[in-house]
């Protein structure tokens, strides 16, 4: 790709990006949120048309004017949110659009053979006859890769492929990528998990503000240097110092015997959070951590147990009760649960506390605009103004709008579910700083995170969850990665 330029109303998303990928190479693309990675990817996929610049394959300039053209050119895209049809069988998903036929009819037997052949080639096993909705995240990803291979992809673009995977699943993915590399398949690998790049990538291109900053061989680019290139200034990649919890700090959240029937059943969970304290919930994906915070916030209604906020019993029958009691849940899935994408920054910011901005039912737009401008300035949300539609913001800035929505409410307890998933180091540091500022207000924080260093680095206490129950509790000093993982995996207590 050479000198790619793409502008949106008010935003120059790409401003001359160039890079090349060789056969059998994994080329990592890194940059902060809003740097232009996603836009670049969409240009490559044919979802957007570039305003200037060229795309060349094997030295020939090509026009990618739609997903079909991308497919014909051997470009396979694997987005962070997968594109599987949940009710179709895995085999049908793999062969979607390429179903073998006999005359006018589908040839089911040939389809199974073909899909099984691709899987054998990949050396993986998938339940071909099961509907795609039953697959784990890792299995869905494998299905996407198989899908790309059926389409004879020679270049596979992956966006944050490891964001939702466990360590073991990541190992399997990397083994698969290595195998395909040997067969000459090239990869563009977009990731925020910088520490995994030395394991998987051959070269790294850093993008900032829609421009190519540098391309280096991975082994010649130490992590600190990479971060410096990404943000354009040196950043402390480590976690901030947590202020100690005062010995007499009051308990702001007490949960006792909580049960709920969410995706994973919450099975009698009890714990306390004090003012100025961050309690981390660690555990494997599917352990029930998200289900615990969802039950506390009324997103799933608890079936048993007690919830006290600042010493007062709260009957949580829905999100409204929890919000009224001072509980704020910042969900992990911002597009599905956090934001109304078609609404403006202003409308999203005030959505959960509109009664404060609508005395007697009529909305006071001036007050709304005022608080929105304050939050934009305080959180440094990159948007032309509060009237911008949230859909047009980058992922990190959308996440900040979700935060703004809950910050204006002065809650007593903040439940953060994967607060930094899919966002870059710079924005991560900002969110950690924000959590510290919240602690100073005297709130209590519960944080769910799949990134072990984050849980260990940003929590006063760590609770390890497995199968919907708290299995162990560690003080910060005792919470070592091996101990936590042992409990999470069910090897210890």
């Amino acid at each position, binding site marked *: 790709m050479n000198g790619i330029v793409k502008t949106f109303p008010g935003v120059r998303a790409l401003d001359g990006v160039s890079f090349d990928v060789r056969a059998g190479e994994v080329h990592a693309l890194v940059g902060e949120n809003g740097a232009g990675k996603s836009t670049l990817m969409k240009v490559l996929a044919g979802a957007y048309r570039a305003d200037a610049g060229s795309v060349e394959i094997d030295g020939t300039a090509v026009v990618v004017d739609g997903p079909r053209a991308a497919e014909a050119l051997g470009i396979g895209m694997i987005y962070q949110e997968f594109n599987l049809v949940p009710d179709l069988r895995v085999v049908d998903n793999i062969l979607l659009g390429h179903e073998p036929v006999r005359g006018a009819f589908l040839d089911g037997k040939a389809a199974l053979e073909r899909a099984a052949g691709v899987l054998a080639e990949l050396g993986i096993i998938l339940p071909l006859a099961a509907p795609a909705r039953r697959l784990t995240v890792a299995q869905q990803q494998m299905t996407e890769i198989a899908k790309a291979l059926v389409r004879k992809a020679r270049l596979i673009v992956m966006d944050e492929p490891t964001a939702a995977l466990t360590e073991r699943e990541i190992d399997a993915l990397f083994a698969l990528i290595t195998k395909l590399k040997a067969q000459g398949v090239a990869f563009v690998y977009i990731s925020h998990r910088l520490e995994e790049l030395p394991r998987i990538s051959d070269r790294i291109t850093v993008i900032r503000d829609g421009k190519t900053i540098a391309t280096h061989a991975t082994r010649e680019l130490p992590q600190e240097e990479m971060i410096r290139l990404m943000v354009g200034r040196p950043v402390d990649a480590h976690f901030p110092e947590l202020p100690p919890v005062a010995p007499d700090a009051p308990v702001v959240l007490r949960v006792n015997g909580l049960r709920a029937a969410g995706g994973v059943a919450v099975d009698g969970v009890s714990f306390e959070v004090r003012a100025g304290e961050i309690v981390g919930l660690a555990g494997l994906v599917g352990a029930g951590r998200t289900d615990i915070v969802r039950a506390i*916030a009324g*997103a799933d209604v608890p079936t048993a147990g007690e919830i006290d906020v600042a010493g007062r019993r709260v009957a949580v029958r*829905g*999100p*409204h009760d*929890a*919000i*009224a009691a001072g509980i704020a*849940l910042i*969900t992990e899935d911002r597009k*599905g*649960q*956090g*934001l*109304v*994408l*078609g*609404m403006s920054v202003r*409308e999203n910011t005030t*959505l*959960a506390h*509109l*009664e404060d901005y*609508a005395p007697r*039912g*009529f*909305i006071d737009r001036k007050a709304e*605009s*005022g608080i929105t*401008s*304050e939050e*934009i*300035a*305080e959180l440094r949300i990159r948007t*032309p*103004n*509060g*009237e*911008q539609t949230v859909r047009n913001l980058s992922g990190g800035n959308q996440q900040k709008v979700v935060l703004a*929505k809950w910050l204006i409410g002065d809650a007593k307890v903040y439940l953060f579910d994967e607060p930094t998933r899919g966002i870059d180091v710079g924005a991560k540091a900002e969110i950690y700083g924000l959590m510290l500022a919240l602690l100073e207000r005297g709130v209590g924080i519960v944080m769910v995170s799949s990134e072990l260093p984050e849980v260990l680095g940003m929590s006063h206490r760590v609770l390890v969850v497995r199968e919907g129950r708290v299995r162990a509790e560690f003080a910060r000093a005792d919470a070592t990665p091996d101990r936590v993982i042992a409990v999470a995996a069910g090897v210890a207590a």
Partner: protein
Amino acid sequence: MAGDASGVKAALEASAGDAHAKQNRALWLRAGGALAALVVVVVAINYFSHGSFLTAVNLTNVLRQITYNAILAIGQTFVIVTAGIDLSVGSLIELTGVVMAGFANAVPFGGPGLVVATLLVGLAVGCTAGLINALPVVKLNLPPFITTLAMMLMARGLAFKLAHGRPIAVNSNAFDGMGTGFLFEGLLRPLGLPGIPVAVLWMAVLVAVFAIVLTRTRFGRYVFAIGGNEEAARLAGINVGLVKTMVYVISGGCAAVAGLLLMARFQSGSPNTGIGSELQSIAAVVVGGTSLMGGRGSVVSTFFGALLIGLLNNVMNLLGIESYTQDIVLGAVILIAVIVDELRKRYLRA
């Protein structure tokens, strides 16, 4: 740092003001273009209809004819913004009309008291039907297409049963003013103008009130939020069930008001006046640019959608186009309207 932040804030507010100004300019520009096109079309139509289109009497008639559809379409707009649909409104015109006519004949009093009492009875019937439409949608997550389709059949059947298959003539003359009366007649007649039909005033008031409800109130904001992302709305503490119930109740209430005006106009409550009205109201909403996917829409646009359809019908009548051809043209216009709207949105996004 604080100074910096307040500077940023001021800049943001200025920029928001700019954005408003730009939006307004774009709006006026678009409106201006549309207006110019309208003038050309109107002059042409007037020429071909030998001057019978551009008369105060004819235009007043158009406004009166669209009253019922516009009022139905107001309620329909609320429902569609939540990504729902209400197929029962046509039948509810009939059911409320029949019940109100029966009620007006059964009570011993007349005058304005009778009009108010009849309206309240009609609203009770219409809103209850809306509530019944909403409950399975809200409690069991059933598709509104099905629940309102069922209500459409039940309400029509009930109207026929209650009326024994024939229109119920209204005995009282209390509704004459509402059905056929004009406002400011004394003032406007000397100027050669017919005055403002009372029914048109009802429509204007309802459009204004519900436009404000949808754009300026908390309830209106919640209607948009639910249509845009129901789960995000729920997690923001919004009582999604209540808001959704309310939009179907509003729609039922609008059907009752349209039923009353229609009853007053024809001096009877009839069980077959509303056939096809539900689709007409949906057409008005869609031609007005509201998305059937929910999350976007406007009462004022819906009014203009209804007006456009009404003008089109009127013009075709004046030009002597036969009714089958009229249906073909109307269908084509609806299709073109939504295609143009979609293309315009894509253009604005790119």
